[in-house]
């Protein structure tokens, strides 16, 4: 067929021409990948937010959500609930501050009472809820009904603005308005009362069970291709924020990707693979240092490549390898490099490689007439990087959260950044699309039995998978106790996800938490010290069948914790180190002691 006669009615001749041209320009694997990409895209446009049909209860359930600072709205919310229950309606009162937005999917009738502050802002405690509902991540609310009671003070410029905002937004999101919004001035009692009555009557007089509308919205994604390391899914970044406070010595970030339409699924404990690319600036500098040209085309493994693209997408161009050292020694014939090649110099060699990026070597030992082919043949293919998943699909459907500590350091007076973590920190704003895949990690899994207690030990970003663990266990309503040990540098700035742990401690999802901050006092305190303090209980939990997890730094944390664990067993079981070591070893072979260290 020629490209003048489009196959089927779906494409215009022009579109078809473009496709045809594109097609002829692509390699087989690229075509394959794109088919998946388009499948993904197409699927995303037909939204699939609802988490599936819910069993429809006899009566529509009512949730009264309030946002309050000085208590008026909360009082009214309780009053409303009381009179609603009096007329036999099922009704729950929740503070917007504590409301788990993921519940929205299951809601039926939402009654919102909110006051206004400042420049027409919501009350402090409700800010989070407002940001969610007014933000891009807000779900569709078709089939749900709502009503708003706005509290305010007419002497202010933005009278009852917060209430008005909710009223507007819920309508936008497709919810149906039960009764018109009422704005209450400082003397709100009467107005509020009549609003309440209106609602009670409306709801009270309603007939039998209504079918749940959420089910209608339900649709499952069925992508035509499995995304994996070879065919990663182009995932949009939906959130990318530093989660350390001012003055921190770290710049740890929380990053969220949308997996919507990818068909990707993962379990807590898995990691997200990210196919990073090199910083264009560094690519340019390197090409410059090699006195080559960005647009030079050359042949590599039977494919035609453009130099700048090759160096951006295909090869590691920062950290130097022994292979590169050999190559450059050969080209430059520089004594220093030659020396370092000798077997008895392995120590110096690794120090040299650790302190010289490729560009540093190229600059320091200039070479005439390097060929692109030759150069890339000495490079290592660019590897994807892994990041522990910090979310659970059960709690954040279609999302993948990761916690990233950017690698930063100086060499020869220049600041350097890690390839992937640098990209994620500096060049991955919202809406940036990055190729990702799921790296399963069957050796880091929650116990099958929800009743089994777990002890989680992590420092820095090593705490990421535990956020996923707790999200999962919370949604599953798992009864097993959870105990978290967390370590970082400074309490005030580096307590990663502090607010979330606190909520989980409050509602019991997290039974215990012990923290160690190494730079708050003169004597350095690490997680293993806190473990020692809790020696008896840790052993008791283990005897109860608890699973124990360690995640984070492989160099120090893992061994220190391991030895501490042995000490604890020895001390508490009053056995020798031998026996204790066996005890711990058998924990490992029973998969009750699992590690995810890097």
């Amino acid at each position, binding site marked *: 067929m020629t490209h003048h006669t489009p196959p089927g009615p779906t494409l215009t001749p022009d579109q078809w021409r473009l496709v045809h041209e594109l097609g002829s320009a692509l390699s087989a694997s690229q075509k394959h990948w794109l088919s998946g990409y388009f499948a993904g895209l197409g699927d995303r446009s037909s939204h699939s937010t609802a988490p599936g049909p819910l069993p429809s209860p006899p009566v529509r359930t009512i949730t009264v959500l309030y946002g309050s600072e000085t208590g008026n709205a909360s009082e009214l919310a309780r009053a409303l609930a009381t009179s609603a229950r009096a007329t036999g309606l099922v009704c729950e009162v929740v503070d917007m501050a504590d409301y788990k937005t993921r519940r929205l999917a299951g809601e039926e009738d939402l009654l919102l009472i909110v006051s206004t*502050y*400042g*420049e027409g802002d919501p009350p*402090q405690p409700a*800010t*989070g809820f407002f940001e969610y509902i007014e933000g891009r991540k807000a779900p569709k609310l078709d089939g749900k009904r709502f009503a708003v009671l706005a509290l305010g*003070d007419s*002497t*202010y410029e933005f009278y009852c603005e917060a209430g008005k905002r909710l009223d507007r937004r819920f309508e936008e999101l497709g919810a149906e308005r039960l009764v018109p919004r009422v704005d209450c001035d*400082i003397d709100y009692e009467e107005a509020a009362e009549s609003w309440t009555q209106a609602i009670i009557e409306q709801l009270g007089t309603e007939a039998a069970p209504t079918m749940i509308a959420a089910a209608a919205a339900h649709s499952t994604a069925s992508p035509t291709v499995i995304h994996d390391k070879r065919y990663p899914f182009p995932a949009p970044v939906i959130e990318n*924020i*530093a*989660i*350390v*406070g*001012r003055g921190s010595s770290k710049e740890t970030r*929380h990053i969220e990707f949308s997996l919507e339409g990818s068909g990707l699924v993962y379990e807590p404990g898995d990691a997200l693979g990210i196919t990073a690319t090199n910083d264009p600036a560094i690519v340019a500098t390197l090409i410059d240092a090699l006195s080559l040209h960005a647009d030079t085309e050359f042949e590599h493994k039977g494919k035609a490549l453009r130099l700048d693209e090759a160096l951006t997408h295909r090869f590691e161009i920062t950290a130097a390898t022994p292979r590169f050292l050999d190559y450059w020694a050969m080209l430059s014939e520089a004594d220093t490099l030659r020396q370092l090649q000798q077997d008895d110099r392995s120590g110096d060699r690794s120090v040299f490689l650790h302190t010289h990026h490729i560009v540093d070597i190229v600059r320091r030992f200039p070479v005439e007439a390097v060929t692109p082919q030759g150069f890339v043949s000495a490079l290592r293919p660019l590897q994807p990087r892994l990041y522990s998943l910090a979310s659970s699909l059960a709690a954040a459907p279609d999302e993948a959260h990761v916690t990233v500590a950017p690698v930063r350091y100086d060499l020869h007076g220049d600041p350097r950044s890690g390839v992937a973590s640098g990209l994620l920190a500096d060049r991955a704003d919202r809406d940036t699309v990055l190729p990702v895949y799921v790296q399963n990690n069957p050796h880091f899994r929650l116990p099958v039995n929800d009743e089994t207690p777990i002890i989680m030990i992590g420092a820095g970003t090593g705490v990421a998978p535990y956020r996923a663990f707790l999200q999962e266990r919370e949604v599953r309503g798992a009864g097993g106790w959870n105990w978290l040990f967390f370590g970082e540098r400074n*309490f*005030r*700035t580096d*307590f*990663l*996800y*502090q*607010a*979330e*742990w*606190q909520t989980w*401690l409050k509602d019991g999802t997290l039974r215990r*938490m*012990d*923290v160690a901050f190494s730079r*708050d006092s003169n004597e350095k305190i690490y997680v293993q010290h806190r473990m020692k303090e809790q020696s008896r209980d840790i052993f008791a939990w283990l005897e109860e069948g608890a699973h124990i997890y360690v995640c984070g730094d492989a160099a120090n944390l893992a061994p220190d914790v391991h030895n501490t664990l042995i000490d604890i067993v020895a001390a508490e079981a009053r056995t020798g180190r031998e026996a204790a070591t066996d005890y711990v070893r058998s924990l490992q072979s029973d998969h009750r002691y699992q590690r995810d260290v890097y």
Partner: protein
Amino acid sequence: MTTDTFDRSRDLSQPLDRLGPDETMKDGSDFLRGSIAQGLLDRITGAMPSENDVKLMKFHGIYQQDDRDLRDERRHQKLEPAYQFMIRVRLPGGVCAPAQWLKLDELARAHGGETLRITTRQTFQFHWVLKDSLRPIIQGLHDTLLDTVAACGDDSRGVMCTVDPQSSQFHAEVAAMAKHVSDHVIPKTRAYHEIWYGDERVASSEPEEPFYGRTYLPRKFKIGFALPPSNDIDVYAQDLGFIAIGGPEGLEGFNVVIGGGMGRTDQAPATYPRLASLIGFIPVEKVVACADSVMAVQRDYGDRKDRQRARFKYTIDDKGLDWIKTEIEQRMGAFFEAARPFSFTSNGDSYGWNSTPDGCHHRTVFIRSGRLDRKLLDTLRDIARVHRGTFRLTPNQNVIIAGVQEEERPTIDALLAEHGHDADTVAPFRRNAIACVALPTCGLAMAESERYLPTLLEKIERILDRHGLADEPITLRMSGCPNGCSRPYIAEIGLTGRAPGKYNLYLGGGFHGERLNRMVRENIGEAAILEVLDQALGRFAVEREAGEHFGDFTIRAGIVREVTEGRLFNE
């Protein structure tokens, strides 16, 4: 009228379950211990995990706060608010020895964000204190014989006393009296020693709080001593005020005023500022008995149901001044004599050098809004190292380097000059302006105050210049919320915050604190504020009578109706 002829359904005579929740909380606190000691050990939060402990700690002079500038930022970072504490020292009469100053300075640098705050009640506050630094600070203060007991809470606060050198004949005597009364009314519980100094709890058959009892007072209670002609302490803003009366033989006694207070709430007409009422004269030896009796009346009859109306001023207006006076006399076992004549001339400070008959010299140093930043700390530390007199903190948030000998004056001057602090260069309008702390530390602030005052003053000064009023002393007081910590309702120009950038504007207060002002515009921004002031000051410049103060003028000129009584403030 006898006690059973009126409503007692809201006072101490009622069972706890009929009173406000805080009464039950206090009663169950085991004399202010609560679970504070345990809370200090919690490593998961920088706050106190128990709400009740947060309230109880106020009785220990400690307020939990958070850096409000960082609230949103930290919520996004999934971090808890930047919790920190404010610690208020109990410093009767605002008198502080150089050694104590040096200790305060050292502690502020180590644990208090390198700043100290001089308050409108003549004491120091530490801000930016982290939970782990609470004990170090309080123990540090202990080393230099200072504490923070009842610097806040439902009890009798640190007692104020005039420090203005103009009125110093009896200063020493009256200051000693203030200290004595302060020590007398301080809570007696050992909780403070146990929690902060680590003292063992000793069993004792004695009642732990002979005067206060298990539930202390319904609300805070404030005492102050004024020495005419200076009313620097704003005696009419005190729950209980003593006005020193002297005669040829020296100090004879005090006129007593009761029921002053500023605090009010917007949109709550039942709350209002009130000036203390003059009820008579007592001889010196009756002062302690008088204080006891007045506080006992408030303890027994104050409203314990609604904290918004629990201050003594409302007890008086609800029960009637005469009845209250009789009740006090009965408990005091003596009648009030007729009040003696006296007169105040100002509630401001006298800046620069002042000398007193005893041959001492006193240098008042202007401190903007009482904020001692790094630079001022350095200056005053240098002075404290050589100074042999005392420091006095003024109710206008300034510092007096007091009791300087003739020969030492040059040294002090040199040090001040060296650091570039010369009070005499500060324009009168600035000297008479007060701002409360407000943002970012105050949890109740609705608008800026301390941080915004300088900007606003500059703009008002331009107006004053235009009307040729640059050297006119006019009192302006700004508060970040209606609580009125800067005593704004007795200023000639008062401002109280409503929301970011929005204030209520009040005019007509008395220059030496003798008259409340009245709201002229509600909830307005800077432009509107300047416009109203421009008009009023413009007229003042041309229509004023000789020596007439701005506040008096605004009333005579009908710009604002006089407020004759607190309860009429809102009409």
